[in-house]
């Protein structure tokens, strides 16, 4: 590390002090202050830490912060103790008769590794890294890994969805048996919906997978999720886009949720993802994939094509008491082509919004209604407000999830301009996002 002098995280006077002593991250140091001797390795400083502190990893393994501004501090660089080299894990050889699975990395907690010396999180780039923390994969499939990009999922845009879809298209063309996409959990539901629409008649399973707990933790949900996902990609009978995550608090089940019906419903639990207004389609347990329904698309040769354009000027607007209807005017005046409303109850908003909505519809903007209740079906015939909204042209979107409706509208309006056609497409079930019956089993 010496000669590099990156001094990651250190700024100002402290950085000058360290530079003057010629010491860098990873060097052995002895710091004496107030009669106390601190010996260990110079550790990096995190970005948001206060200036004026030096971090040392003591021989015991503990980190401490030492305040420099008190003065009377003496820093000395010590000779290196021993060369610490990372020994990569022994890579198990996958048998050649196993199914072939491609893992596309887009980022997220699941695809990261921790540098134990610094605590820094680094992305996993290779299959070797994945085998490192989940060696069982070698018994399940022959795996290739490609990093498509590595970003926080909240920074993703529809253009990223298009990129992922087109990479998937390429691999389908190469004849792989299944595809796994690692993804940050925050917006994994949106991407899953997007791919469900963009991959027309996909002949193999596409499994999105994430983790709520990073893989550096022994308790991480990453390994089981990944094993379930790769198993499904290798041999599940379904050919759909799904999200694979823990089914409960125990490390025993991975549940596969249809991409158009799945939603992240908890900030932190490992079973945060739920299917809403639908059953999950399959479950992984005891090393097997069990289907939970007969109603699914099977694997097989078909007319597969990628249609991955998304219109970005679509808005998702959540209604609430006191909502300022002029927000809707803003969308109209700024060239938006579609608005999905998350209304209350059966699909309602305040009567004050009816005129702005009429204005939107009349200017050729598609306005669709979903419910912030999430569960249940929108019905705008029951109450007067609903009927009035329909009269001005709002399209009730049945039992579709608001987030899914947003993504679907982006996809629909990228390919049609006519509002009647758009309405027809929005109300046609393309990938399981809309159903004509609601089971009494589907609720929380």
């Amino acid at each position, binding site marked *: 590390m010496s000669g590099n002098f990156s001094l990651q995280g250190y700024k100002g006077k402290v950085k000058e002090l360290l530079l003057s002593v010629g010491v860098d991250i990873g060097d052995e140091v002895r710091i004496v202050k107030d009669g106390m001797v601190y010996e260990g390795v110079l550790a990096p400083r995190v970005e948001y830490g206060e200036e004026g502190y030096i971090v040392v990893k003591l021989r015991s393994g503990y980190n401490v912060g030492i305040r420099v501004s008190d003065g009377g501090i003496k820093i000395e660089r010590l000779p290196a103790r021993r060369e610490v080299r990372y020994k990569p894990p022994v890579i198990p050889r996958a048998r050649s008769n196993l199914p072939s699975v491609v893992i596309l990395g887009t980022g997220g907690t699941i695809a990261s590794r921790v540098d134990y010396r610094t605590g820094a999180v680094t992305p996993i780039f290779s299959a070797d890294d994945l085998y490192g923390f989940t060696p069982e994969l070698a018994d399940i499939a022959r795996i290739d890994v490609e990093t498509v990009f590595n970003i926080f999922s909240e920074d993703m845009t529809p253009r990223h969805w298009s990129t992922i879809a087109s990479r998937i298209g390429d691999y389908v063309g190469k004849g792989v048996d299944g595809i796994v996409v690692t993804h940050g959990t925050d917006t994994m539901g949106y991407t899953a919906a997007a791919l469900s629409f963009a991959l027309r008649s996909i002949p193999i399973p596409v499994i999105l997978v994430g983790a709520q707990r990073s893989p550096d933790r022994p308790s991480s949900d990453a390994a089981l999720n990944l094993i379930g996902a790769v198993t499904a990609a290798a041999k599940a009978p379904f050919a759909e886009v799904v999200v694979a995550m823990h089914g409960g*608090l125990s490390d025993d089940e991975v549940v596969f949720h249809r991409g158009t019906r799945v939603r992240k419903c908890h900030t932190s639990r490992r079973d945060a993802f739920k299917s809403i207004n639908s059953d999950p389609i399959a479950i992984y347990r005891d090393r097997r994939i069990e289907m939970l329904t007969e109603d699914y698309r099977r694997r097989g040769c078909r007319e597969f094509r990628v249609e991955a354009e998304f219109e970005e000027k679509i808005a998702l607007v959540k209604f609430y008491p006191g909502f300022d209807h002029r927000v809707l005017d803003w969308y109209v005046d700024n060239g938006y082509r579609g608005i999905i409303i998350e209304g209350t109850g059966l699909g309602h908003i305040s009567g004050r919004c009816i005129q702005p909505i009429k204005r939107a519809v009349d200017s050729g903007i598609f306005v669709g209604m979903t419910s912030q209740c999430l569960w249940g079906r929108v019905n705008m015939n029951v109450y007067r407000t609903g009927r009035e909204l329909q009269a001005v042209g709002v399209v009730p979107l049945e039992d579709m999830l608001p987030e899914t409706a947003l993504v679907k509208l982006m996809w629909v309006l990228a390919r049609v301009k006519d509002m009647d056609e758009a309405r027809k497409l929005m109300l046609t079930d393309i990938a399981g996002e809309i159903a004509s019956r609601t089971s009494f089993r589907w609720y929380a």
Partner: protein
Amino acid sequence: MASLDYESLGLRVGLELHFQLATGSKLFCRCPATLSESEAKIRFERRLRPTQSELGEVDPAALFEYRKGLTIVYEADDRSACLVELDEEPPHSINEEAVDIALTIALLLNAKPVDEIHVMRKVVIDGSNTAGFQRTCVVALGGWIDLDGRRIGIQSICLEEDAARIVERRGDRIYYKLDRLGIPLVEVSTSPDIRSPSEAGAAALAIGRIVLSTGKARDELGSIRQDVNISIRDGALAEVKGVQHLSLIPKVVENEVRRQVRLLELRDELRRRGLSKSDVDPTLYDVTDVFKQTQCRVISAAIGSGGVVYALKLPRFRGLLSWELTEGLRFGMELADYAAFWGRLGGIFHTDELPAYGISASEVEALRRAVGANLEDVVVIAAGSRDNVEDGLKAVLERVIVAFDGVPEETRRAEPTGVTRYMRPRPGAARMYPETDIPMLIIEPRRIENLRSNLPELPSIRVKRYIEEYGLSRKLAEELVNSLYEDLFERVCRSFPSLPPSIVASTLIETTTMLRRRGVPVDQISTDRFYELFRFLAEGRLFKEAIPDILACMAGRGIDVSEALEELKLKPLTDEELKTIVAEEVAKSGELISKHGLNAAKIILGSIMRKYRGRVNASRLAGMIEDEVRRILP
């Protein structure tokens, strides 16, 4: 046994004392920091995976546990555990009250607080932490205590989460309760400056008193856990975990020193016999057939469920497996402990102690023939599934090889008898990395100055105060300060000013000592129960003569003071009852009274006290008897 010369043996002892804090909530969440007795409301299972260290290596014991397919079952109730304990939510900010207590302890121990606290993750995958790591931070470094003119150095004071409570282990499932997980612990680690068993006990007591003087550390049984690190020259570091009671520490040190000395003597004996490592035969012999008809239940059960019996031959080892290391521990038992850990076996059998356990002399003969062993050789056998038996005997073999070098470094556990037993191999260098979910905490000089000006009294000051303020004798005051009951004593005296402090103190010190000597588990009585006892005393609902019996009755059982009174029938007699009894007794004692006159009152007192001791105030009774006798006297 002859007493040992610890100095020439080069004894070095270090202590790691863990104190549970009595804070309002846990260290990284707002659950209450108390153990729960309510039923588990949820149960879930996890597998904890060994992760790689920065060297790309995996901790061997951890990998071993994982491959053996250990499933961890957690039980929690929702009063004492939240999503943080379930590893379903990131930790909340660190409990500042706990930080202040830890800093106070640091100041009392002359240690230097760090400028900025960094919480670390210390990887642990035996299941005792749901996240697979313990959150821990160093709060202060250095320090010392003075012990009879010698200075014992302190290495560090750390603040960390307590672990989940193990409930039981059944086959490949291990059960934990989550109520204790997350309770703040302060760990005080000394330098290995301690040089004798009695010094170890004294150091633990001195540090314990200092920590408890903050008034913020729990003092019930189980809330102070003591680990002792012991080594002698030519021996090896033994990390002894979980010494239950302070008073056991000197005994543990002494036993461990003896054990190591005897292991070195074993090594020498091996040399004397002309044996070397290459003489040890690594072959595992299948001797299942020898035991087809055995009366030994363990072996026949193993064979019955499809298992095997394998044997190991140790040439010219005769007598070495029954080599006594300390009282109650023989070398053969050490080997059995290794077999138990690595092979999950209940135990092993060896020819130094056979025939026994249902294994016949003829079976022993057949066994020797089967492996080609003569009477000078020892044969070790194990029964169970093939995998377990192989793993277990391989571990035995490795331990035997190490015996040629002397003493292995180990982690051992302390038994209530003071003997240590092998627990697991010493872990690799503690794998610690920053806990990035918790921001670093700057410790401002102002905070330290504040704490410094509010430090609790040192023990010597308190002795003086107890003498002056409460009128205790010096002896009782010193004993009180040496005990764990000070806080309780002051609470009781302040709440019940009608009680003479010396009675409170002597109950807490002398009565408990007397009961402890009788084997009564008086340390298991909670402070709340003691407080209740004194309240009853103050309210006249029991008499002080009843106290020893009531304590003995409550100890180790979940009953309270009124239940104990009921059970022992020690409720004070009402005035009515007393009058009746006195009248009856005096009426019966006509002869006595005519003979001795008023002095008969004393005898009558004695006989009533024999029957009703603990239910009556002696001096009041005496007065009543005198009055009655006087009434009768002509």
